[in-house]
């Protein structure tokens, strides 16, 4: 089966610019997650979707971050405007049914804000 697909793999932008990341989860997976991973650290959850509903966005900086999962399949994560501290790897993951099944991660988008 195809894994979680993310694009782009790398993105370099200047601060205050907008940026968007795209994720295609594994087919049939109802739950989609966006994580942020800083260098040398474990991933930290930004938002979790059950189908098209965001059920946990408590760690999403809503002043500049937004996400959507139209039709409960693909998802986009947007940052506007980006700040230097947003430099990190943004990981998308999916699972069959929330945390009751293993999370499958994509290879991430490495964002560098200059």
């Amino acid at each position, binding site marked *: 089966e195809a894994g979680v697909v993310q694009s782009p793999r790398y993105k370099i932008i200047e601060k205050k610019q907008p940026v968007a990341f795209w994720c295609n989860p594994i087919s049939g997976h109802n739950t989609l997650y966006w994580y942020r991973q800083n260098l040398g*650290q474990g991933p930290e959850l930004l938002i979790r979707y059950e189908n098209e509903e965001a059920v946990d966005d408590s760690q999403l900086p809503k002043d500049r971050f937004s996400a959507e999962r139209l039709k409960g399949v693909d998802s986009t994560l947007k940052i506007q405007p980006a700040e230097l501290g947003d430099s990190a790897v943004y990981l998308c993951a999916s699972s069959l049914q929330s945390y009751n099944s293993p999370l499958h991660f994509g290879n991430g988008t490495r964002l560098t804000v200059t």
Partner: protein
Amino acid sequence: GESVGLHLPTLSVQEGDNSIINCAYSNSASDYFIWYKQESGKGPQFIIDIRSNMDKRQGQRVTVLLNKTVKHLSLQIAATQPGDSAVYFCADFNFGNEKLTFGTGTRLTIIP
């Protein structure tokens, strides 16, 4: 706050030897624990998990041990291979607040 941490940030092991990666957790209410492997440039990959009502679980070349008394988790990798070189994360999950918390990670290097 609650945290999941690792004792050592780096570990080097001779190829063919066994390796043990340790993890301490602080949330006594954690329901299960997961080990992930992350190779350079890739996302974390599920290795093995263990429920809080178990103290040992074995997979292919891997064994996870859970000691709830001292809140300690370990991942044992038998007969290490070059492909085992990666960063290993432990994570704990609590059904009550539905939070999956990752530790910082241990970099395992297999020496040929």
